[in-house]
């Protein structure tokens, strides 16, 4: 080895220098990234921008003079913390939203914000305030319903306008969560509870109402059946029913001598008993 090095010292050194020079001047921009070439502080070129002419791949730069700033090309995520938003009807709501954006103008982004993190920091308060404004114009109810869609379209448009200044494009804004803050949450629980209590009470009342109606209908029907049957001969029914009634009242099968009857000899029953004719 040493012999080889000594024999071809110049070649080896030249090769080494070339290699180092290549390493220093070549750079690879992967598919996921875009790059800005900064020559002594001045952006001079871009690689692999969305909609740009260059593509990802291997590129050369002038060592020491050109520096390469790599910037994410994929869709980035801007998440908002829970924010208390006051609706138009003075109700409080905890809102948590996210925006998706991508860097479309890396040169402007590098100039105005420096890094994607810088863009995030710049956009976050804007997202907050735009969202707050937009939702503040709506009632609590409409925040929950489909109208939310149009609110978010406005938010997106507003945020996008601001983001363009930082070389970014806002693709989407979505409300992730809408929650009630603690105090309204408790009152919502109370309301739900009382709602259910009312419902339970209504159901119970409905049940007993139905039961009463069913009984009354049955009684009425029974009365009709009785009347139909007995109405055929009211006089006989009186007699027949009286007989049944005596039976039920006096000849109590279970303890027969509960009742004592004192009969007058004039009694109709004893008519024959006396032997009178």
């Amino acid at each position, binding site marked *: *080895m040493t*012999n*080889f090095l*000594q*024999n071809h010292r110049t070649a080896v050194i030249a090769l080494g220098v070339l290699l180092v020079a290549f390493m220093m001047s070549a750079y690879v921009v*992967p*598919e996921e990234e875009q790059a800005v070439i900064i020559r002594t502080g001045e952006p001079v070129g871009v690689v692999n921008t969305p909609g740009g002419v260059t593509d990802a*791949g*291997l590129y050369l730069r002038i060592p020491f003079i050109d520096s390469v700033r790599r910037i994410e090309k*994929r869709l980035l*995520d801007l998440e908002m913390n829970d924010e208390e938003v006051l609706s138009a009807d003075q109700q409080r709501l905890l809102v948590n939203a*996210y925006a*998706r954006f991508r860097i479309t103008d890396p040169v402007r982004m590098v100039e105005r914000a420096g890094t994607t993190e810088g863009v995030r920091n710049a956009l976050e308060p804007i997202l907050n305030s735009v969202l707050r404004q937009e939702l503040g114009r709506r009632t609590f*109810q409409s925040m*929950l*319903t*489909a109208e939310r*869609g149009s609110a978010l379209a406005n938010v997106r448009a507003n945020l996008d306008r601001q983001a363009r200044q930082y070389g970014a494009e806002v*693709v989407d804004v*979505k409300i992730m969560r809408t929650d009630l803050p603690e105090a309204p*949450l408790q009152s919502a*629980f109370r309301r*739900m*509870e009382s709602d*259910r209590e009312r419902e*339970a009470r209504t*159901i*119970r009342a*409905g*049940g007993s109402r*139905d039961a009463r109606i*069913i009984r009354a209908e*049955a009684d009425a*029907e*029974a009365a009709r*059946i*009785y009347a*139909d*049957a*007995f109405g055929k*001969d009211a006089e006989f029914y009186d*007699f*027949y029913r009286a*007989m049944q009634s*005596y039976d039920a009242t*006096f*000849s*109590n099968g279970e303890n*027969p*001598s*509960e009742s*004592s*009857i*004192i*009969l*007058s*000899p*004039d009694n109709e*029953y*004893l008519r024959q008993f006396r032997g009178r004719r």
Partner: protein
Amino acid sequence: MTGKKNPWGGDSGKGGDGDKPTGAQDGDKPKGPRNPWLPPGGNDGRRAPNIEDIFKSRGPEGPRRSGGGGPGGPNFRFPQRPGGKSWFPIAVIAVIGIGVLATSVHLVGPQQQGVVKTLGNYTRPLEPGLNFTAPFPIETVDIEDVEGVRSVRIPGNNNQAKLILTGDQNLVDLSYIVRWNIKNLEGFKFRVVDPVETVNEAAEAAMRASVAETELDETFSGQGRAAIEQDVRERMQATLDSYGAGIRVLGVEIEKADPPAQVVDAFRDVQVAEQNADAARNQARGYAQQVLAQAEGEAEAFDKVYEQYRLAPQVTRQRLYYETMERVLSQTDKTIVETGNVTPYLPLPEIRRRAQQPTTTVTAPEGQ
């Protein structure tokens, strides 16, 4: 030329010493032919120089070494292979070869797909099967399972209640599972920073939006749930497509939709009330059937008797009268009081007493 400490290349002068590390050779000496590189019958003195000679004349480093080497040169050498050549180039080639092979031959499974990046630039997809690419670092390959269904449960495993506001401003404790796979690997890899997180967020946004348009009771009913599931799936797919995320949402399943724990008792009470109401209705129905049956029975009985009565009114009437009186009076205490000036003595206490002993009571009054 002669490395004194060289453990492999034996020194001609001190063959015995030089061979010590490879002591087996001493033992092999008598069985010379077993060493394939030794000419048969070679002795100790002859063998070492012979190897050196071969090395000197044929080895790729031979001329260099004879020129620049000499005493004081580096002593390390790779083990020699048969024929005296160095293993070094072989090892280098092998390592490179393995590297090339490992990074240029790709076996893509049936449910996988890959993307090829040529110097960082996406050039082509890899379909299932055996694929060849240029070796690293010229081409790099990412292989992902595209068909396999991934599922994410929201909220995660922390099991904490996640309350979602419904359209009627109630809260529902909802958990659901999103199943998805990769529709388009290129989009999945190159369009969105964190596709998995994106799926979660899109799911959450879609679910909240969808529930916010639904009434509380609907979220509990099977039909309402199915509608929500469908709606969320469509919303998520639209969102993810707008990101070009290359994700296909296969399904959203609501695992549980419950009232919040704080008000669950009230909800249970509603169920209890429903059952109570049903019970009350059932009891009433039972009563109704009983009453009607009784009425029908009595009416029927009267009809039957009345039929007979109409055939012979007077006789039937008398018969019924006497039969009833018989039944009644045979089972009661009877006292017959003559009219006139006799003051009747009513032995009421006695009757009462006798009432305690039923066996005697029946006959006694009849004797009177």
